[in-house]
């Protein structure tokens, strides 16, 4: 056997100059320019300003705002709303994704839901809040339809028992907010978890069935351990999107659910509560929390790919 390698078998070694050639990078220039101007510079600016007073001198006082009870509460409410909506949206989205990948739904259903998810995941803010107000508000379209359903009871009187507001429903509450957030949270879950579910190989299920495992045992011992990093990773993504959201909550609950993002906006541009520099400090606090979230997400992603590669 001839073990000498012909020159052609050796991958052509490019010179370092060729690999660093500007033409390879030119496509990335707009991206880096964008990142520098709209992410790095503003964040750095934010960080510096959070340590400045009104006259530009160094100070740590802005961070003293973190001790205020209402600030602590705002962080706590933000975290809770994000956790609740990401779990609700996550569970809901997982079952939808399961149905269109492993379930026996027809192919067009899968295409329809993926397209819908792509659209809905990007719908948010005031338009989303207003569409809920217009449908499920007290004078909303669906509320009006439900209220108009009446029938006579035994005594002959007309009753209209379906007005949601007479049955304890209130759109302008935590439940309403979760409902509104779910609109963009569950499609985001569908989009992120579908590839992971598609990665579950049929052979694994068959193999465990051959070895006598029940479907429950298969899910508990095989599928879920493989999927759990993806599920957690996707849920973290939902958490991040809820944590940064602001306009929907403000338009829907007018400050009665006082998120940290609302507080920051009021500090920076409110007419009453106004101290931009404290706002910057609060924003840095959010960046720290988001940083931890993203680190956790990256770590979990790495674990997922390790499982799926083998």
């Amino acid at each position: 056997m001839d073990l000498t390698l012909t020159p052609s078998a050796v991958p052509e070694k490019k010179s370092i100059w060729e690999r660093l050639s500007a033409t390879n990078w030119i496509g990335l220039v707009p991206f880096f320019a964008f990142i520098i101007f709209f992410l790095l510079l503003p964040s750095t600016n934010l960080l510096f300003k959070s340590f400045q007073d009104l006259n530009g001198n160094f100070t740590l006082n802005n961070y003293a705002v973190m001790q205020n009870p209402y600030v602590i509460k705002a962080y706590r409410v933000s975290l809770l709303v994000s956790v609740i909506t990401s779990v609700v949206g996550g569970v809901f989205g997982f079952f939808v994704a399961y149905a269109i990948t492993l379930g026996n739904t027809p192919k067009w259903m899968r295409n329809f839901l993926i397209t819908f998810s792509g659209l809905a995941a990007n719908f948010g803010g005031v338009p989303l809040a207003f569409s809920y107000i217009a449908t499920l508000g007290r004078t909303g379209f669906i509320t009006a339809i439900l209220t108009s359903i009446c029938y006579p009871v035994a005594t002959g009187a007309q009753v209209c028992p379906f007005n949601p507001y007479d049955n304890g429903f209130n759109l302008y509450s935590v439940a309403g907010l979760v409902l509104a957030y779910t609109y963009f949270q569950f499609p985001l879950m569908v989009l992120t978890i579908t590839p992971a579910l598609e990665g579950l190989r049929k052979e694994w299920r068959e193999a465990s069935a051959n070895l006598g495992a029940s479907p429950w045992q298969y899910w508990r011992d095989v599928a879920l351990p493989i999927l759990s990093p993806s599920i957690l990773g996707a849920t973290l993504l939902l958490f991040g999107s809820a944590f940064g959201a602001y306009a929907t909550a403000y338009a829907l609950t007018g400050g009665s659910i006082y998120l940290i993002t609302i507080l920051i906006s009021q500090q920076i541009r409110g007419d009453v509560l106004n101290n931009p520099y404290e706002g910057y400090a609060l924003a840095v606090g959010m960046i720290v929390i988001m940083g931890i979230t993203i680190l956790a997400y990256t770590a979990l992603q790495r674990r997922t790919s390790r499982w799926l590669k083998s």
Partner: protein
Amino acid sequence: MFSKRNTLFLVTILVTAAIVLTACGSAGGSVSNVDWNTMKSAEEGGGMEALVAAAKAEGELNVITLPRDWCNYGEAMDTFASKYGIKVNSLLPDGGSADEIQAIIDNKETKGPQAPDVIDVGPAYGPLAKEQGLIAPYKVETWSTIVGTNDPDGYYYVDYSGVMVLEVVTDYVDQVPTSYADLNNEIYKGKVALAGDPRASNQAAQSVYAAALANGGSLDDIQPGLEFFKGLNEKGILLPLIADSGPIGKGETPITFQWSWNAYANKDNFAGNPNIEVVYPTDVNWGGYYYQAVSAYAPHPAAARLWEEFLYSDEGQTLWVKGYCAPARLADLNARGVLSDELKAKLPDPALLAASIVPSGDQLKAARAAVKEQWDSVVGLDIK
């Protein structure tokens, strides 16, 4: 490690950025030698004609946070633009007073179309901007006829005023309330809303302040106002929604607290769909006003001053009246019979305006602090 070519690219980008940024920063200088930035009146700079000439040479004016339907500012801007051939750049029409102050601070060093020349701010921001050296003193020719809490040196001056009213969508309210006290009734469940979060919106904060006086409080005691809204909230009467034209038009927030000029502008805009009734509450007659000022860092100092002259001329004042705002020179206009009866009818009763309660700057400051501290305990939901 950079190749020469990469370095070249980097340099190109930086140079391009530098050129773009410098281009944005350049601004036309004044034709004459007068530095209008330091002129405290038109007379000082050589009279109105010199001011008009200098302003025309500048060619542009940057105004900020002026919605077109707020006090008829849309028509005022259009009239000014066509009268003097000066382009009016309207920045951030839906912003608030804090945005205006921040825009001056952010643009101290730059002179582009993003730097405001003039501001129109809530009462707390006049003294604040003066303290921070952000506004320049200027007295218009009609200065002596401006009525209100003006700065004696001309740093800031009252532009217009009105009273706090209830804006009621009659399509959704059977029995129109006539006072704050009326609202505390189960029949208004889920129907009453504020125009903003009182922690952020001047209009909403003043609604709470007004409610204090309707409920036994005083200008030094806003507590009863907070208690009043707490009660409304507990009974489900107060709807935690930001009542802007969307929810009002939908009928979702049928009863809201508004400055009279906003309520009437809404009524005009909706044109009967839905029907709006403006109610002057019988238990408190609460007045509100705004301040006008010229930026100390105005990129178009002459145009800024000409804008003030225009606003405080009979013509400008009349335009405000058309937008339901009672201008600061109203007494003078009425004394000389400038306004038609039709226009006069657009304003609240002069007696009502004159008698309206207005807090001092310090009282307002204390009231705001109380709102900031306590509003969360009034409406805040605690999520467990």
